[in-house]
């Protein structure tokens, strides 16, 4: 690591601005960072959240979070068939978002992303919604993020696991990959990738229930693809995929060989953040 190159004020100090604080000062941030439930409460996913904060702070983008005013988007309820609960969540969230005059949102989770982007407009909540991998791609394209100051991924075999709600769900295949392409790493694809990508097993509210009886865990099936691709790092872009992929790695006892990292974490590390 070569931290000397980074000015002290560009290193995130752990302070997270909230919309309420900003509003009290009469300010509206450029972008709202929608953290999501996993990003807020899941210990592993909190690391992804922090990496996103580090990146936002580093590039000097004015942002804020909703903090305790944020509430589940309703995605798991909707996929499980509880449309009532989903719309209750959606309408309540939309009231909060509209009250803060939110225009642009970046999410740390493809499920929040999909729900906010596609399912909120009809209910009165229209915002420009992007996923953090799209933001990272944009920052790289603008030259605001370089990969010269941080951890080197040179020669590492990295494979990207497509999150269903980014890939098939919203046709976002390139943004996460382009964030990896600047690393000088050895990028490999799993046999099932892009539109053929295999689900990690968490979607459709499966994250919150035991799987139905079968002969195998979906996460095991998926991590076998990564093992076959001889990947050292499995890059993910979704906190639920993260949980599932790590389960798969544990199940195959490959903790020493395979690391699961979010695109945001990889980007933050590569930039020495």
């Amino acid at each position, binding site marked *: 690591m070569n931290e000397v190159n980074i000015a002290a004020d560009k290193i995130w100090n752990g302070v997270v601005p909230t919309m309420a604080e900003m509003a009290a000062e009469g300010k509206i941030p450029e972008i709202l960072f929608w953290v999501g439930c996993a990003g807020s409460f899941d210990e592993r996913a909190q690391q992804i959240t922090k990496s996103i904060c580090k990146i936002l702070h580093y590039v000097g983008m004015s942002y804020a979070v909703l903090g305790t005013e944020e509430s589940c988007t309703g995605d798991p*309820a909707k996929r499980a068939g509880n449309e009532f609960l989903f719309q209750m969540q959606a309408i309540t969230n939309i009231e909060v978002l509209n009250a803060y005059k939110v225009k642009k949102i970046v999410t740390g989770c493809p499920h929040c992303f*999909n729900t906010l982007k596609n399912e909120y407009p009809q209910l009165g909540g229209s915002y420009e919604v992007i996923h953090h991998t799209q933001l990272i791609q944009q920052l790289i394209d603008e030259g605001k993020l370089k990969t010269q100051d941080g951890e080197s991924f040179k020669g590492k075999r990295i494979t990207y696991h497509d999150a*269903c709600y980014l890939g*098939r769900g919203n046709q976002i295949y390139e943004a996460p990959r382009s964030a990896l392409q600047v690393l000088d790493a050895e990028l490999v694809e799993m046999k099932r990738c892009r539109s*053929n990508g295999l689900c990690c097993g968490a*979607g*459709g509210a499966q994250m919150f229930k035991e*799987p139905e009886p079968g002969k195998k865990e*979906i996460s095991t099936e998926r991590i076998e693809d990564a093992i076959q691709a001889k990947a050292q790092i499995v890059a993910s872009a979704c906190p639920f995929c993260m949980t599932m992929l790590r389960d798969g790695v544990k199940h195959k006892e490959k903790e020493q060989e395979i690391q699961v990292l979010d695109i945001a974490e990889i980007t933050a590390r590569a930039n020495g953040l």
Partner: protein
Amino acid sequence: MIAQLLFLIILAAAIFLFSKNAGKIRRNILLGKDTGRSDHPAERWKTMAKVALGQSKMTKRPVAALLHLFIYMGFVIINIEVLEIMIDGLFGSHRIFSKPLGSLYGLLIGSFEVLALLVLFSCVVFLARRNILKLKRFSGKEMTKWPRSDANYILIIEILLMSAFLTMNAADYKLQQLHFGHYLQAGSFPVSAWLSLLLPASPQSLEIIERSCWWFHIIGILAFLNYLPYSKHFHILLAFPNTYYSKLTPKGQFSNMPSVTNEVKAMLDPAFVPETIEPGRFGAKDVTDLTWKNLMDAYTCTECGRCTSVCPANITGKLLSPRKIMMDTRDRITEVGNNLDKHGKDYNDNKNLLDDYISREELWACTTCNACTEACPVNIDPLNIITDMRRYIVMEESQAPASLNNMFGNVENNSAPWKYASADRLNWAKTN
């Protein structure tokens, strides 16, 4: 003259019977609920041109795609020949297109022959894939005796039709060379010229062969047409409207039920005046709770199993098979339609799509990953049916699995699917 009359009667009967049965399917599809699918016509035509006409989604499996393309092109192009056969049959003419088309006729007949051979070849390979190689995709618990036989019947019928077509041409070619009767010099026969070497030399026998093959071929086609409404092969017709009415919004976007919006808004704001929406149940218990597009999907399904072969639940041994969801939906709506015909409107057979056809275990195994909808070459959406049935189980019956009920409770009370206090939501920022 008698032959012409006979042909006319057979043709009329075939068309009448087909219209009647196709009309029944249309009626069954329209038993479904309305769903707006007439927006963006330009984009819809484009989707149909690309996916149905252009077979764009078949290419994911190149071998099947190429063989299917042969059969598809054979079907579409050889139909020009069928048109000629119809006219000849009705007016007692022979190869009526040969004069007006001139040298183009030879080219056409030649290409039909090549296509017929390719169709023949593809059907043989497809039969082998199903019955000798036994590809996994063509098995599964929903692939019971009838679906398996149906697939084989289709392939065998096509082989017979193409063989009759080529043998007819071979006899015709040989008769042409003998300058026999009305067999004028017309067409070119790159395939059947070889076949003709196997045929007898006597013009009388040749004429019998030519005529029998002609009749076998055309009656076969008309019989096949009437087989379609009973078969998965109906996809050759429904693929076009079904892709036209595709879902155009992102795959990740699920519909927001307007009936629920009404209730939620009324709950949150007592002053809210709900729009009038016809009352009905939330979600789907039976096929008539589904939309007409769901039902059209079901009749369009050709049971290829691409959906099931990419389904993460199915791959890992769970009960769910998206293909079964579609086949069950089709079988049930057909049953509902038959009941309607037999017993009238008010009859209730006390059966439902849920439980009698599709089990809850299947429905709860879905990860909503959209692999099935992505894989379907004709844009069928099993996920939409699964979600709608989950909605019925959750909102009408409150019978979600206990762990999901816990999750619902957490979302409602703690604003997160887990049991963490809402007030702790920003605690992550305090721990570095």
